[in-house]
């Protein structure tokens, strides 16, 4: 099972500054294991952030994103008490969603 994300969201006025840490190997498919065999590609493909259930930010990414990905982005029109959820899905169909409630300024 996928490990939890770590989401930090800081409100600045009506903008939420979001930073998220994800736990994922982001295998390129070009690395060999100890036995000399190529390790198959395994990477996050899609990311979506939702504010109170409404999509606000999306990404489509490749295996060239670093292992244990770190992203930051800014969501407009946010306020304290809003729920920000982030979901990723990888090339094997594994998914993970974590949600934070935006704190006061």
């Amino acid at each position, binding site marked *: 099972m996928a*490990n939890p*994300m770590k989401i930090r969201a800081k409100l600045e006025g009506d903008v939420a500054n979001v930073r998220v840490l994800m736990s994922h190997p982001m*295998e390129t498919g070009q690395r060999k294991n100890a036995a000399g065999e190529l390790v198959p590609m395994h990477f996050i493909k899609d990311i979506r952030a939702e504010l109170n259930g409404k999509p606000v930010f999306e990404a489509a990414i490749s295996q060239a994103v670093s*292992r244990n990905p770190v992203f*930051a982005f800014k969501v407009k029109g946010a306020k304290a008490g809003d729920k920000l959820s982030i979901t990723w899905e990888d090339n094997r169909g594994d998914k993970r969603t974590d949600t934070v409630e935006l704190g006061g300024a």
Partner: protein
Amino acid sequence: MATLRRSLAQGICAFALLVPSALLAQEDKDSTAAAIEMYREMLADGNPAELHELRGEELWTTPRGPKNASLEKCDLGLGPGKVQGAYAQLPRYFPDTDKVEDLESRLVTCMTTLQGFDREEVTKKPYGSISYQADMEALAAYVVGQSRGLPMAVPQKHPKEKEAYAIGKEIFYYRAGPYDFACATCHGEDGKRIRLQDLPNLTEKKGAQFAYTTWPAYRVSQGELRTMQWRLWDCFRQQRFPEPKYISDATIALTTFLAVNANGAKYDGPAIKR
């Protein structure tokens, strides 16, 4: 990609550090240094070590092992269950084992006594890889994170604590192996570097403080959270020494030497490093 694979495999060298510009000694802060500094600053905000801390806390509080117990009663030196500030006072002497123990040694003690794990079993694979999550690294990340911002205050009261320091110091200066290296070879002078990696002078208070307070660390070159035991182990590898045994008295003595030299500094791990 071949280049990338190579750099991933080999990007593991000595105490690579987030040395502040003041520590770059007399050397001019040229454009290379400025660029590297910017690289480190950009990495600092967003440290995957936090993910390990999260997993470590989970491991700490989950009943596990033959005795189905959590580690919440583990005594890291400040009393059973007290995690906050404990790492800033390790290694230290523990009466129950009659030994000076570092964090990882003490975690193993707790895992064997409280949880009933087999010592061999829990120390067999202490370091993680892309295909293997090491519990020890996560537990270490969690515990050290609970000392962030606190001053290092490693005790030197018990005779065995003093002895560990004295022995650790001799190990630090011990030259041997096909390259004639000692720890002091790379870590005995200010302002030196291997390739572009700054080397803290561990014989000097400022360098020792900076180095010690930023380990354990998430190594971006490996995508792993690395502990102090790992740090020494990989230094000895590069020193072309034989392999030190995990949580052995020799490694704990060396850690004691480094930790005591860092006393007074604010602990700032787990950090993120190249």
